[in-house]
């Protein structure tokens, strides 16, 4: 497949983002509507934050996925590696079961309370994600051995997932909120969530860009990266923190949305060869396009019944991965 220069691919992805967002604004509870008015409060208050929020969450997950794959030099790494997403879920489950959210919905709260709750949930998700990362690093005895790290991440993910289920069982009042969270849901995204995610995305993208030479160096191996004057360990810790923050922020707003972080960098690499800084930005854009499109499909395919977007990304992402495995096996057998 022919490769495309970074600027050209970025322009394509930006155009696709705008198209997907336009479709998002035109998709309501009854399906697609072609003649929507910008002044319609439903468009401004519900569809706009939901669509922009889906793009931002997808961009955060795409960026986190590209960081994970670069940091661990493993194309199967994603933000769910290291147990970070499971840790974020557990953080949210703890917040919910302790009654931090209470019985009121976001819509019933004052604006200050809404911000406090949103930051609280994001904070708990971040603490959970980071605790999981630390636990994984502890079990793997550092980041030097990729296989040990991946295995530790899987173990931590399973154990924390079980703890989340247990918490939900002992606090049945959190069941509806947790179910929506575990299935992945963009319907609760508000303007505040968008502001929060946009701020975190800018921060994470900036830091990732500045420290991306580490990812370039790691693509030639750890010794080479070190010989090029890169401080591998501290830079790795910074980029792991950025990955954790991006994942936790997205997970706290939308719940568990699988495969976007894994698939976005793969799709970019299929059409792009180049430095990590460009790969990170392109993966971010691709993640935004993927989740916005998935959100539009989740709302429109079976309208008025809405599919949880996490279920849709799971099915589509799993299918894509199966196809990739099959096509690489075919290429291997014909070689």
């Amino acid at each position, binding site marked *: 497949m022919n490769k495309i220069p970074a600027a050209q691919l970025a322009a394509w992805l930006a155009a696709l983002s705008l198209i997907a967002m336009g479709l998002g604004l035109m998709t309501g509870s009854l399906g697609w509507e072609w003649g929507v008015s910008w002044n319609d409060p439903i468009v401004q208050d519900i569809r706009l934050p939901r669509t922009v929020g889906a793009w931002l969450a997808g961009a955060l997950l795409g960026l986190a996925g590209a960081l994970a794959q670069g940091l661990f030099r493993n194309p199967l790494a994603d933000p769910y590696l290291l147990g970070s997403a499971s840790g974020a879920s557990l953080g949210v489950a703890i917040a919910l079961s302790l009654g931090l959210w209470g019985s009121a919905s976001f819509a019933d709260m004052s604006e200050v309370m809404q911000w406090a709750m949103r930051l609280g949930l994001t904070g708990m998700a971040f603490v959970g994600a980071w605790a999981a990362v630390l636990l994984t690093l502890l079990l793997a005895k550092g980041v030097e051995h990729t296989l040990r790290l991946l295995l530790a991440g899987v173990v931590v993910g399973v154990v924390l997932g079980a703890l989340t289920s247990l918490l939900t069982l002992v606090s049945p009042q959190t069941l509806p909120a947790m179910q929506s969270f575990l299935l992945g849901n963009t319907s609760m995204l508000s303007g505040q969530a968008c502001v929060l995610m946009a701020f975190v995305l800018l921060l994470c993208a900036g830091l990732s860009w500045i420290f991306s030479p580490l990812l*370039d*160096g790691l693509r*030639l191996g750890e010794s080479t990266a070190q010989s090029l*004057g890169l401080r591998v360990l501290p830079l790795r810790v910074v980029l792991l923190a950025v990955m954790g923050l991006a994942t936790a922020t997205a997970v706290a707003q939308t719940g568990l949305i699988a495969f976007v972080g894994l698939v976005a960098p793969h799709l970019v690499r299929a059409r792009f060869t180049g430095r990590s800084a460009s790969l990170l930005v392109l993966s971010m854009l691709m993640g935004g396009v993927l989740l916005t499109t998935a959100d539009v499909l989740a709302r429109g395919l079976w309208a008025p019944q809405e599919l949880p977007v996490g279920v849709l990304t799971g099915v589509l992402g799993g299918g894509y991965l199966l196809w990739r495995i099959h096509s690489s096996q075919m290429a291997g057998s014909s070689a």
Partner: protein
Amino acid sequence: MMLTYAFTAQKLTVQRGSLCVLSEVDLSVHADQWTCVVGPNGAGKTTLLKAIAGLLPSTGELRVQGHDLRTLAVKDRAKMMAWLGQQEQGSDDLSVQDVVMLGRLPHQSSWVGADAQDMAQAQTWLAQLQLTHLKDKSLAQLSAGERQRALLGRALAVQAPILLMDEPIANVDLPNQSDWLQTVQHLTQHNTTVVSVLHDLNLAMRADHVLLMNQGRLVIHAKPDDPLLHQALMEVFAHRITIHRVADQWVVLPL
């Protein structure tokens, strides 16, 4: 002519757990010459090179041009010593030009990135290694020899006065080995000190100096013509080799 040393090591030691894998190595490497490290498997050749490059924790003294290498900032050290690892990995989705440009990282700040001088240096080495026509190809599209040339280009683009290479021509064919020898000669003529680990003793005997390692210790550091080196080689390789002079070159054959 006064001989100067590119770097010196004293009592250079590497411990791995309770095992001493490099034991009190003293050596002085001649500037602007090619020194080749040889020895049987597990002799400590790669460990020695990695310790010199600062890629392994070690004890003892390492000095370059009067500077203690361990006190230098990592970027200054990187500008002083370039490294090409054994079967260095290269991500298949990097282009040849990207790979060579990575050699300029020690010269760049995180905030600014590559400038015109970095680009010019990379172009120079692409041309020097006959890679210009391949610069936009990804590593996956290259032959083993071309790939190795691209990775060598990355190490050379650092423009360091000392180049350390661990098995740089494993798995490449004879024409590519010949190209590599010419590149090494070009480098030593242009004020670069080359230290390489090679398994191929015939190629190693073409170096200016040979450094023989065994069981984590330096056995001898001598010129290829030195009869003491020949004797030590035969002893270390358990008298399973013979060394002959053929067409003005030393040839090492298995018995």
